[in-house]
């Protein structure tokens, strides 16, 4: 019986089964997607005349990078950078410190249901509100300046880090933690010995990544009045001082790259 089956199958071609089995549906989906794509592109209106005029301004902007002016507004740039760095470091430290307990609470495998729901709620709120919107709100409350920026970045860090930390805890090796529990450890010891060693490398890596993001965000937040290098950049644009703006952008790029390099080294060491 089974030999008959085998004989029938020998010599016939084998193909991986399709993800969507029904060929009508499969080709219908592909055709629909292509049609949508074409329709979507057709809705984009390009005013080529405006583009032609704009090219000039774009060229000026790009040319400014060949002669960035670090000097004439050196004082402003330095002040802005310092403010951004202070904002970044303070917001990252505060954000990370708050994220850790929330991350623990948002991990389903170690937190009881009510705490889990509360922490997940905090994470959801923090992630739902975009930084710029939070910054505008906080600038309205606290006025222009780095305090609003610092609060915005701390708030955004909580959503980012708690969520990713919680997910790392949820995917940890349960047996290692179980072994610590079996020795009669209390809850705090269980976290310290059973959970922390498993998630530490990722926590450090994510924190470094978040510091990097916070610095970049601090440049954007200045545009809505939340202080930092972004405010200096905004002023430079307003004055059409593209060479100063170019200098600022170059500094931001250099600092971000330096942070990237640093975080690479740190992550390699904590593995």
């Amino acid at each position, binding site marked *: 019986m089974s030999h008959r089956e085998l004989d029938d199958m020998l010599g016939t071609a084998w193909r991986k089964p399709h993800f969507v089995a029904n060929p009508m549906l499969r080709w219908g989906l592909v055709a629909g997607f292509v049609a949508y794509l074409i329709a979507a592109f057709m809705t984009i209106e390009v005013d080529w005349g405006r583009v032609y005029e704009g090219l000039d301004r774009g060229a000026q902007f790009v040319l400014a990078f060949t002669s960035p002016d670090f000097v004439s507004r050196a004082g402003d740039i330095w002040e802005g950078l310092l403010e951004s760095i202070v904002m970044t470091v303070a917001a990252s430290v505060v954000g990370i410190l708050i994220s850790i307990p929330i991350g623990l609470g948002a991990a389903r495998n170690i937190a009881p249901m009510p705490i889990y729901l509360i922490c997940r709620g905090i994470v959801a709120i923090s992630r739902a509100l975009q930084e710029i919107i939070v910054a505008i709100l906080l600038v309205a409350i606290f006025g222009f300046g780095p305090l609003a920026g610092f609060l915005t970045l701390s708030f955004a860090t909580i959503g980012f880090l708690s969520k990713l930390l919680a997910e790392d805890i949820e995917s940890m090796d349960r047996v290692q933690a179980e*072994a*610590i529990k079996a020795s009669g*450890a*209390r809850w705090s010891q269980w976290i310290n010995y*059973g959970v922390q060693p498993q998630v530490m490398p990722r926590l450090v890596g994510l924190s470094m990544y978040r510091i990097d993001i916070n610095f970049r965000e601090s440049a954007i937040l200045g545009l809505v009045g939340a202080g930092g290098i972004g405010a200096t950049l905004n002023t430079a644009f307003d004055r059409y001082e593209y060479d100063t703006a170019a200098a600022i952008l170059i500094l931001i790029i250099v600092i971000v790259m330096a942070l990237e390099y640093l975080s690479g080294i740190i992550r390699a060491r904590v593995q």
Partner: protein
Amino acid sequence: MLRLQKLIKTYKTGDQALKAIDLEVPAGQVLALIGPSGAGKSTMIRCINRLVEPTSGSILLDGTDLAKLGATQLRKARRSMGMIFQEYALVERLTVMENVLSGRLGYVGFWRSFLRRYPQSDVDEAFRLLDRVGLLHMADKRADELSGGQRQRVGICRALIQNPKLLLVDEPTASLDPKTSRQIMRLITELCQERGLAAIINIHDVALAQMFVPRIVGLRFGEIVFDGPPTALTADKLTEIYGEEDWEATITPDDTDEDIEAAE
């Protein structure tokens, strides 16, 4: 010393993993728990120290019913039950010494353990145990640098430093090669004898159980179907525990086994 009375575990899915288990383990006795996968061996061991919550029944350890203890008392009771795991369950990113000392967590306060400032007596005992299993030179290595057999030795030290009355051993050799398996089983049974510990050892390898353990309990579908000395474990009994198979080769001690041991 340990007595299980009508111990029942029903999982949320409705599976009855343990059907009214009655078992008595006197002080200092080492017993092997055999049975097919899914028979409830692991569940039974985990019900004893309540890593798995039993549905009903009692677990009497020196007269205390573990099933009725509150969180703090349970934590204290767990100190007297050392556990050894199949995949070693060492915390991989901690050092060997930290792993061994983590067996003392039930005895020391949070700050001492957080700062890794254990009492000198604990540290000395950790050194002594590591020396006993031949791993003293590995004390400051990270657990993930060790081989399987070495990890299991560290696991044994972690269980023993708790100063337990009872060892719960879950498939100690399932991830090890035959030679290391024997060494680990010998080490566990020797240490139990030295310290007068009782132990329940879950084990897949029937021949290994017969070689080292004086009492064997067979579990099938959550019920005890065999309880006796290794010599009483006949082919018929194995069929009753595991189902139909040719058992003769499993229970006849093989001459090559003796050769391997002599060569060690």
